[in-house]
């Protein structure tokens, strides 16, 4: 049977019987496939995930193109409230692109065009008249490499609310006696405590944030994102630039955050996904969502052969 697969050069031609029985990777490697990856047809039921409660985000038929490059192919998934959803997959599979679609950060890339629907609590975010400021307040984001602003720790935290006009600490506000200094102090402390950073930095809130270590900077970025009081927190490989100790702190933090927030996290690290997430979505080469389901099920009993190969480290 593996003989058949090796000579196949059309993914759609692979039959179900082969999918059920074949475990050996193909040696004939067609285009657009990571080395060692077998071919198979993805099936609708693999990406159906049953869960209790409301869907916070529901994505249907999302296609993303970067110029001629079709980066995401008709992705549909529902992300439950107050949980951790991990997106895993090899490099270039579109998982970061998917994440950036959830708060319309892809709008900032001129070459990107997006087609499909993303609904936040039932409201379509890809329609005219969407207030991006409000959307991004509700759907916060943490990036791969820590990127605090070259300002003080406290200013980093209060930056979002101040710029939204929720808090006013300007000179004029001070003169008029309307300054929100106390509210700012409270916000800084609350956000830093949520990000498990308060105990480490509470004596140097006015120091420049660039003086913190990498792990502290990343937790500061999480605190900064939490300061705008979002409902969803998107994290794009937040621990990939950090050492194991800092990584485990971030993982603990993500776990705690899931009680209040809906966390969607992209990671390269499969152990990390298995440890911290409630459900896992596996993207494979070509921008396809191949399997989505309960994390335990995806890791222990994947339905897709390619996902099993990927998880067991045969490619990617």
């Amino acid at each position, binding site marked *: 049977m593996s003989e058949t697969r090796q000579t196949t050069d059309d993914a759609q031609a692979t039959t179900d019987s082969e999918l059920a029985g074949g475990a050996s990777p193909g040696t004939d490697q067609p285009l657009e496939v990571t080395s060692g990856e077998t071919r198979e047809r993805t099936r609708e039921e693999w990406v159906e995930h049953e869960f209790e409660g409301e869907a916070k985000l529901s994505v249907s038929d999302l296609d993303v193109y970067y110029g001629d490059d079709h980066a995401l192919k008709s992705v549909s998934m529902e992300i439950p409230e107050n949980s951790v959803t991990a997106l895993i997959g090899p490099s270039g599979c579109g998982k970061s692109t998917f994440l950036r679609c959830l708060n319309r950060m892809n709008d900032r890339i*001129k070459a990107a065009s997006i087609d499909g629907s993303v609904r936040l609590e039932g409201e379509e975010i890809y329609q005219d008249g969407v207030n991006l400021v409000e959307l991004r307040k509700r759907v916060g984001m943490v990036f791969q490499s820590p990127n605090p602003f070259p300002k003080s720790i406290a200013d980093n935290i209060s930056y979002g609310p101040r710029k939204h006009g929720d808090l006013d600490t300007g000179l004029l506000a001070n003169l008029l006696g309307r300054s929100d200094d106390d509210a700012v102090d409270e916000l800084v402390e609350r956000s830093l405590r949520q990000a498990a950073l308060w105990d480490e930095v509470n004596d140097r809130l006015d120091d420049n944030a660039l003086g913190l270590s990498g792990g502290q900077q990343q937790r500061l970025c999480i605190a900064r994102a939490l300061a705008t009081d979002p409902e969803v927190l998107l994290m794009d490989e937040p621990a990939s630039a950090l050492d194991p100790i800092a990584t485990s702190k971030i993982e603990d933090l993500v776990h705690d955050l899931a009680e209040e927030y809906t966390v969607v996290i992209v990671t390269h690290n499969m152990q990390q996904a298995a440890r911290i997430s409630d459900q896992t979505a596996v993207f494979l080469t070509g921008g396809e969502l191949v399997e989505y389901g309960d994390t335990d099920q995806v890791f222990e009993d994947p339905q897709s052969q390619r996902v099993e190969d990927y998880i067991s480290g045969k490619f990617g």
Partner: protein
Amino acid sequence: MASATDTALVSEDTTETEAVAAGAVGLAAVLFALSLASVFELVTITDPVAGVPMVALLGGLLVVLGFAVVTFGVGSRLGYVATDPRPTAGLLASGTFGLIWFVVGGLVASQTLGLGTAGWVVASLVTGGAAFAVSAAPREDIGSTLPAGALAVFAGVVFLTGVIGPSWVWDLGWEQQASFNAEFTIPVLTAFCSLLVGWAAAKAYGGFGARGRHIGAYVLVYLNAISIIALLFLLVAFTVLKGLPGLFKGLALGAGAGPEVTLVGVTFSLPVSWPFVMNGVALLNDVNGVLPAIVGTIWLVVGAVLFAVPLGIGAAVFITEYADRGRFTQVVEIATNGLWSTPSIVFGLFGLAFLVPRLGNRKSLLAGMLTLGFMLLPLVVITSRESMLAVPDEYRDASAALGVTKWQTVRSIVLPAALPGIVTGIILGVGRIAGETAPILLTMSGSVAPPGSQTVDVLGGFQLQSAPPFVTNPELMQATSALPYQLYSLITAGVGESSNISAIDEFRWATALILLVVVLGFYAVGIATRYYFRSKLQHD
């Protein structure tokens, strides 16, 4: 098996040969310094130094160095000195030596031996070709020492025998009566030869090969850097020394010594009287001064900066943050670069033809400010754009992900992060416009050396009135002087001779010094500003 000297990881103590080579390098450096000193006439070439005339000292040292280097090279070739040479000195070194000896051969044949064109061409080709062959064909230890050493010995002998002596003059025989004299030629040739020999000695010290080349290049670069710094230092020192006597003429300290001033309604006497910077030029002054020009220069720069910086930063924000990168931004970029390289006299003409007729139809401080502002504008745009592009996109992403609008991101993140770079650009631009003469000449110059009473008082000149334009400032519309223009007029146009300035030479140099101080003052302000903004961005 390679010999131990080649492969030893840790070299032993300095060997005698290394010490000799190092001594040669040091001597070459000393010789270079001596020749520079004579170029700038700190020592004339006939002055005795350590008992011998300078020219003999230079020549003698060259001969000694040349022989030392050649001896070292030959010793290495014959195996007396352990080195690690390459098979050849390389094309660059050979070509350079060939060219140098080509020139030497030609000059000797045509000038000293008096041969005709055919003669010197043949001689040039022979010497140049021989030098190239000697340098390229044998092993590196011969190839890089022999031509250099021979040149030094040759030059030394020429100086010592008086072929080029202190009274030597090379008349080029042109209509313009151009000639070179020994005072300049001997030190320059010595400096050149000492660089070459120093390089060869440094290579020898490194045992040739890769290490030798590294050390040779290091010595060359190092000596060059030192000489350039020395040059800059001399330039400033020259102006300072010439300017100081005039600058402090009539300086008096002590309570009540200075003129009376009124500040915030209180009248008191300054505790210092410094006529040169407190007076203008007037018949009754004991010591004439340049106060109107100093104040004029300062207001010029302040006005130009106030005009150009907001406009320039605004334009840069637009083309960097808002406009799509494409043809339009490219055209803007090319245009701004072109404007920055446009000669200042063109800006001056524009000011004269466009601004002056529209601003009261007279040369005025305001016209000068705007003209210099136009000159400053492109540099502000260029440097602001560069430093905004250098702000990491991560900051913009992070800000956008927090739901902050583009303009607020630019204002609170991008501009603060770019400010040190922007300030650097402004510093550079101010350095240029503060010393500009041509635009001032065309747009704002009044009398060359105005009396102190004509000092512009921009702040005090504002007047309110009930009819439009409501606020006027006659001081801005007044023609005044500025330091570079005053200097230009006093020196080139010779205006000073007919005016009532006594000791005109002292006055000129002191003016130059004041201009230098004013420009450096602007630099200091700019650097302090940059330091302030940068320290806000950095953690310590």
